[in-house]
């Protein structure tokens, strides 16, 4: 089971309302390379992993991604909470307002809803771990582009933290892949 901790993994402050920036950042909430996709991908792949190490890595990184989902949700919430309808409309969020008002939803930067088609579980540990390494790189690149788009230094600070975590997860998945290859090669001889 999971236990909720009533705090963020990393503090989130914003300089003020910024609807345009929120519209871009929400892709890391419900977009193809976002935190929801990451978390659900890893937690779901745990069951088919043949080694204890790989199960632990997927479990724990999948759990950290849930904390990142909350950080991204907090950014979007804080950047949009006082926005007027005119401001939402001007930032291209008129459609979002029509469907959701100011509620958060799992969408990408242009409003496409989240889909399980973003993720995969192949049942082959090499294929799955390699997918996860690619996913971490795609998320890192997305944070890079968001940092380029950001005009709020306090938001940029949070995006930098999240980008760094993708690099660390990529490293841990790479180590897990190496260990998995050794494990699978050894198995052939017995």
């Amino acid at each position, binding site marked *: 089971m999971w*236990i*909720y*901790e*009533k*705090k*963020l*993994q*990393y*503090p*989130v*402050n914003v300089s003020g309302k910024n609807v345009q920036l929120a519209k871009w950042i929400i892709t890391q909430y419900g977009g193809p390379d976002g935190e929801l996709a990451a978390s659900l991908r890893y937690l779901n792949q745990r069951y088919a992993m043949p080694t204890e*190490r790989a199960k*632990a*890595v997927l479990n*724990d*990184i999948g759990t*950290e991604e849930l904390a990142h989902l*909350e950080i991204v*949700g*907090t950014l979007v*919430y*804080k950047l949009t909470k006082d926005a007027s309808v005119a401001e939402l409309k001007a930032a291209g969020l008129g459609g979002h307002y029509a469907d959701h008002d100011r509620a958060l939803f799992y969408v990408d930067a242009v409003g496409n809803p989240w889909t399980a088609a973003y993720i995969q579980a192949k049942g082959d540990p090499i294929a799955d771990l390699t997918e996860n390494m690619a996913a971490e790189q795609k998320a890192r690149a997305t944070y890079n582009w968001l940092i380029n788009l950001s005009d709020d230094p306090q938001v940029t*600070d949070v995006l930098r933290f999240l980008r760094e975590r993708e690099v*660390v*997860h990529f490293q*841990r998945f790479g*180590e*897990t892949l190496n*260990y998995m290859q050794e494990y699978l090669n050894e198995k052939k001889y017995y």
Partner: protein
Amino acid sequence: MAVNNPCQALLRKIQQVEFVTLELNLYLNTHPEDQKALEQYNCMHRELCELKKQYEQQYGPLLNYGWGMNTGNSWRWAEQPWPWEM
């Protein structure tokens, strides 16, 4: 980053220490025999428990489902602001 009250300052300290334990946790998943990391993990675990206990006594529960303590005569879990509101 500046923090403006003692509650936030203690929370910031918890976030820092817990980040270290999380990093060590992920590292130990792929380096399970690293004695120095094991030692650091246990040391930071003790510090984190101490800080959380201190926080919960003063400002209300951080954890629910029996993992955090309730103090006073009312249920404080739902009284404290949520992380996205702080």
